[in-house]
């Protein structure tokens, strides 16, 4: 994988003392304001209510909050459209969690926490499609693939699969799924947990063809204002969660079914 | 059936509740010119529009060469192609050159070949003193010249009869003469014409018969000389007196 981004290296500077609730520079003092886009989908957010603590990203957020000394009632959720999460200037959130992939270029505009998840990409198709029985990435070369805008899936498709036709790019998973149902695309590429969710909840007769890794890994971090002092504290919280095994158990609880898709090479 | 080119019989016409024509009878024989005089709003334009089938009449008949043209079965486009009409406000097409104005109908309505239509348009324009102005736009011409173009446009389709609706009343007085003298020439060449006009001197000189339209009816008609010197009806006398006030008699 690619080296840790600049923001994670500053984690060492944080001490337990500066990361207490009262020491933090918050958007609203006493409250941890967490942003995410609307709607949120399982397995990341359940019922589009991040505040219910259910779903992977909701659970991770509450775990981080707890590490920083917030009670669940001191966590406030706000809607942050993906495209405004990286706007310059003051932020309305303390951190934003929205399956955002960490890249060095993005890190010039915002600060990222250390990754809380590394997502494999998955290929989802309908039974009976021409790529249903694909076993390798090469089998997907001639397929018309659909992806969602703003996700790593697009670069994954372009860099790893290198299809002969341009991929179709949609606004949200709803449109992506519609295109798949309409057979405008042969298959769609999303992150694996989303693929599993779509297969089980939104599509009948769908099949996960397989999963594949993005070179360097598609690592997700929470987004903070560029240079935010909170970054170090969040990193500290994440590494504590990781070392205590709590992050692992949260991941298992919500993303468990990820494993059973064949690897595409 | 009479031998008239144009014959109007008992024509009535209302706009909403207002009856504008109340039973008009009129005939224009070949090579004749009939002058239609009367106050503003008496229905002159309406009558000419009805004859050219630009408006539907309510009742009565109009005959062109003995054929009932106001029958609903009759195709108005065909009738209009046999008549020529010139309007008070010229109504030239401002987006076309003079020549295009003139050649439009021969080409599009009569299927004349484009080259020929333009050639003939050029000739006619030259005959009416407009040589060299063919490619100008109408608003570059004086009012008198514009109205001459409108006359040429109506003549270009060799109409059976001409309907002239106060063709000089939008003109500057010193330009009136040139247009009237053209109409005089047309009369001499034997054109059949129905002329709504406010130019009494001209009517007196050119018309074979003068009809006085009052409130939608022709209440008096006859020989021009008599009409202007010894009108019988009081309304006619009043009308002529008002023109005298305006020094138009």
């Amino acid at each position, binding site marked *: 994988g690619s080296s840790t981004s600049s923001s994670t290296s500053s984690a060492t500077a944080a001490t337990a003392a500066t990361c207490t609730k009262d020491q933090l520079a918050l958007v609203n003092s006493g409250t941890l304001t967490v942003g995410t886009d609307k709607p949120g989908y399982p397995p990341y957010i359940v019922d589009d209510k991040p505040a219910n603590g259910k779903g992977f990203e909701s659970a991770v957020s509450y775990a981080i909050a707890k590490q920083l000394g917030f009670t669940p009632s001191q966590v406030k959720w706000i809607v942050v459209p993906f495209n405004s999460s990286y706007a310059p200037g003051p932020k309305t959130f303390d951190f934003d969690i929205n399956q955002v992939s960490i890249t060095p270029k993005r890190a010039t505009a915002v600060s990222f926490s250390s990754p809380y998840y590394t997502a494999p990409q998955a290929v989802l198709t309908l039974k009976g499609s021409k790529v249903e029985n694909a076993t390798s990435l090469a089998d997907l070369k001639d397929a018309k693939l659909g992806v969602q805008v703003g996700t790593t899936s697009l670069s994954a498709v372009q860099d790893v699969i290198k299809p002969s036709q341009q*991929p179709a790019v949609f606004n949200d998973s709803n449109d992506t799924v519609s295109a798949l149902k309409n057979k405008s695309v042969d298959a769609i590429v999303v992150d694996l947990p989303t693929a599993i969710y779509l297969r089980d909840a939104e599509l009948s007769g769908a099949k996960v063809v397989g999963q594949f890794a993005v070179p360097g890994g598609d690592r997700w971090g929470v987004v903070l204002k560029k240079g935010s002092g909170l970054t170090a504290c969040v990193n500290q919280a994440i590494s504590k969660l990781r070392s205590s095994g709590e992050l692992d158990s949260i991941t298992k609880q919500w993303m468990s079914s990820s494993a059973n898709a064949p690897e595409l090479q | 059936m009479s031998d008239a080119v144009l014959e109007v019989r008992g024509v009535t016409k209302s706009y909403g509740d207002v009856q504008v024509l109340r039973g008009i009878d009129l005939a224009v024989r070949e090579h004749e010119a009939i002058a239609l005089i009367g106050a503003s709003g008496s229905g002159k334009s309406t009558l000419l529009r009805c004859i050219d089938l630009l408006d539907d009449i309510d009742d009565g008949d109009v005959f062109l060469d003995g054929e009932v043209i106001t029958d609903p079965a009759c195709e108005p*486009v065909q009738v209009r192609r046999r008549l020529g009409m010139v309007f008070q406000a010229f109504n030239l097409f401002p987006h076309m050159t003079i020549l295009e104005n003139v050649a439009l109908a021969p080409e599009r*309505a009569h299927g004349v070949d484009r080259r020929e239509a333009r050639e003939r348009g050029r000739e006619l324009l030259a005959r009416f003193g407009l040589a060299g102005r063919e490619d100008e*736009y109408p608003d570059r011409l004086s009012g008198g010249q514009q109205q001459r173009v409108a006359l040429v446009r109506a003549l270009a389709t060799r109409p059976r009869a001409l309907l002239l609706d106060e063709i000089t009343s939008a003109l500057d007085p010193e330009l009136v003469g040139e247009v009237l003298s053209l109409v005089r020439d047309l009369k001499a060449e034997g054109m059949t014409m129905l002329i709504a006009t406010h130019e009494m001197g001209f009517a007196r000189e050119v018309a074979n018969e003068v009809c006085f339209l009052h409130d939608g009816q022709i209440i008096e008609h006859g020989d021009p000389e008599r009409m202007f010197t010894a009108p019988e009806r009081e309304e006619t006398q009043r009308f002529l007196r008002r023109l005298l006030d305006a020094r138009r008699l």
Partner: protein
Amino acid sequence: MTTVPVDRRAARELARRRKARRGTLIAVVSSVVVLGGLAAIVLTSSGWPAVKSTFFSWSAFKTSFPDILKAFWIDVKLFIAVEAVVLVLGLVIALVRTTRAPALFPLRLLSTLWVDILRGVPTILVVYLIGFGIPALQLSGLPTDPVVLGGIALAMSYSAYVAEVYRAGIHSVHPSQRAAALAVGLTQTQAMRRVVLPQAVRRVLAPLLNDFISLQKDVALVSVLGPLEAFRVAQINAAENFNYTPLIAAALLYLAVTVPLARMLDRMQARSRDVTSGTVPL
């Protein structure tokens, strides 16, 4: 009558020129002060470097521009095709709406409904309905290419706007022009086509251009159906690098089309005002 002082003309000329010069001076100075002031405030603000690097980054521009330019061809092709359809379809609808024959009432009703609904409903929804709805019907023979479907949706939506513009133009031509056209023997259709419409169109060039420009920008909506057109490519680039500069790059491409169009139209209008200002100068 007395004679005119010889130096009057010169004096008047001078006074006029002095007045004009003072006016220009005031206008220039005030513009420079206001604009310069604004620029100074913006450029010296503490946030300017951040704004500059997210919106006006030269390196982000350079890397994204070639891709966006390539994708722009989809926009251009789609725009031209849709515009052609819109001009015709809008005209047909406007013509139906301007008929008065009682017999045509049902058609008139239909075209009124078309205009009201398609103008009132967000274009993006029409794109969704046509782009996702038509293929979902699984009828054979219907187009399934998202670019074509998106084009159809745009044409439907914009035909409603353009029909209203045409209609306003047709109403503005004096009825006497139609009467004159019929009187020389043209048919109703010919009168409309050769006499009324040419004048009507000339009068609504400005609002037509407004709708052209809107359409050109709304071509980007087709991207919700999947195709990678310029604005979508710019968005992807922006999202990838967390930098809005690619959107500015796309906007420059739009401007490169719309500004010359606007200037051309200005000149056309100036000319047509000279040539066809009306019959009698009142």
